């Protein structure tokens, strides 16, 4: 019986674990090796070069900038997506008429791929809004938000919020619905006004929902690629450390461009490995902070 069980275990685990090993684990280690070579994707003679690719990357202002821009985007985006999503969650759990329709509608953008969505919004930013600005005589609409180096990050963040807030909202909704209604009602009877109830009762009761949402948006923002590529393609240009570079080329796009547009496959791979390290650190910090908060409460 025991040996038979063991065979069932192996058989049941095999497909998922095997695919996982072949598709993620092995390429992951192959990738770490290739990042320390002169690999170009064509020449079969790959030479080991040690940490040379890494030192080259660290000297490139464009990578440093990309890192800073991604960090700025992540900070703005996490705040914006969560604030909007939480607001939407409050709206669709209130007594407002048609709340179920709204809940379903807010989720729709999340069904659409980032590539497709980026082109739609590029059209809106560059064609629709300026046209509206012209016909309404509003000057600030006439220059595209994504054509300005200091505003483009906000533009991408707005699009990401539109896409992602509906999904995050769903998690907050579930968090709100898990709170016993009697609790809020009791507080209302005690004379606590709405903001007080929100901050004192609702939000603390939802700590785990906040953990999940912050984690999801953080990782999602940091990995941003599809919308980045189709909405701004890294542009517009800006100056950083005396070099002209692309102001919205986030890390994932920078890695892709390094490997393909600039034909430096091994260097792109080295950037990807660093990207991974940063993601691990960020995720660990995030989990640690949230666990501590939950314990305190």
């Amino acid at each position, binding site marked *: 019986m025991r040996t038979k069980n063991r065979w069932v275990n192996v058989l049941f*685990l095999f497909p998922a674990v095997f*695919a996982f090993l072949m598709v993620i684990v092995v390429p992951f280690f192959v990738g770490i090796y290739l990042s320390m070579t002169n690999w170009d994707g064509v020449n079969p003679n790959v030479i080991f070069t040690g940490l040379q690719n890494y030192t080259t990357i660290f000297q490139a202002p464009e990578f440093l900038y990309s890192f800073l821009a991604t960090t700025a985007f992540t900070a703005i985006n996490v705040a914006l997506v969560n604030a909007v999503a939480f607001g939407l969650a409050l709206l669709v759990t209130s007594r407002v008429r048609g709340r179920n329709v709204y809940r379903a509608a807010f989720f729709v953008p999340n069904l659409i*791929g980032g590539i497709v969505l980026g082109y739609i919004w590029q*059209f809106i930013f560059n064609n629709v809004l300026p046209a509206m600005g012209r016909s309404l005589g509003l000057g600030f609409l006439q220059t595209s938000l994504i054509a300005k180096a200091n505003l483009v990050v906000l533009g991408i963040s707005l699009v990401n919020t539109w896409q992602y807030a509906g999904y995050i909202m769903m998690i907050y909704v579930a968090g709100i619905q898990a709170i016993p209604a009697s609790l809020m009602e009791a507080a209302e009877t005690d004379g606590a006004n709405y903001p007080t109830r929100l901050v004192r009762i609702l939000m603390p009761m939802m700590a785990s929902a906040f953990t999940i949402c912050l984690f999801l948006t953080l*990782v999602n923002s940091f990995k941003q690629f599809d919308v980045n590529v189709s909405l701004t393609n890294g542009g517009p240009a800006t100056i950083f450390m005396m070099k002209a570079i692309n102001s919205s080329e986030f890390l994932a796009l920078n890695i892709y461009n390094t490997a393909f547009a600039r034909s430096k496959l091994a260097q792109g791979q080295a950037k990807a490995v660093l990207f*991974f390290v940063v993601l691990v650190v960020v995720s660990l910090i995030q989990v640690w902070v949230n666990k501590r908060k939950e314990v305190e409460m």
Partner: protein
Amino acid sequence: MQRSWHRVRPALMEALAILIFALFMVPFFLVVLNAAKVSVDIIDNPVSWPKAWGQLFTNIGLILQNSNINYWPSFFSSAIITVCSLAVIVVFSAMAAWVLVRNRAWWSNVIFMMFVAAMVIPFQVVMFPLVTWFRQIEVVTGIRLLRQYLGMIFAYLGFGSSMSVFIFHGFIKGVPLELEEASTIDGCSRPATFFRIVFPILQPVIVTVLILNGIWVWNDYLLPLMILGSGNMAGAVRTLPLAVQSFVGSYVKQWDLILTATLMAMLPIIVLYLFAQKYIIKGMVEGSIK
């Protein structure tokens, strides 16, 4: 004062709700509006009403005939890849998760932690080596993975398994062991117990896994680009996002056809959402909390 506020507030809330709703829907409206125009009219004025809605069908016809997009073959390739990937992800992840939950041992912890830890790995780290590695597999074993359904679905199983195992794991922990014990006493083998007793119970969480992975697989761009390549050769496997990008990304930007193409790329999933909306929302909510 207090009294009138109570009457005004619901009205205000409703106005706000409608406003936000409109903001969320406007982009879709603009797509449809401009997909019914010719390019010149769009550049002239992107917010004007179309001269004739018939143009929408003309544009759809042009997209369907476009040899670069190859809409129907791309659509079916996408559908085959999505359906098959979902089937293997659901069945194999559930099987693995069940074994991991029901065997409390060092190895089950290690495997589970490995799946969880892998969720942090960004696709960029593995995407370049993955292609090289798949090629190596072909050289050694003769099994073709690149540019094939097989490789595509296998890759989705690998990438989809870590989150799916995690979700199933969380759910199965809550399934009482008594049910399975009863069936074992009745003489069911372990695999039979899983497929007859456990798997049907998983239905709500299966919906979650299907939806989370389905949206991702249907819309995914980079992984198909790596595995399938970006050419438009007749007879090759090619997904809808690849087709749209190869059409839209070219230097010539015809917004009329681009917007029609985006409309046709998102329509299938929106139609599905309209029909299965209840499941999708329920699945998302339950999935994210687990």
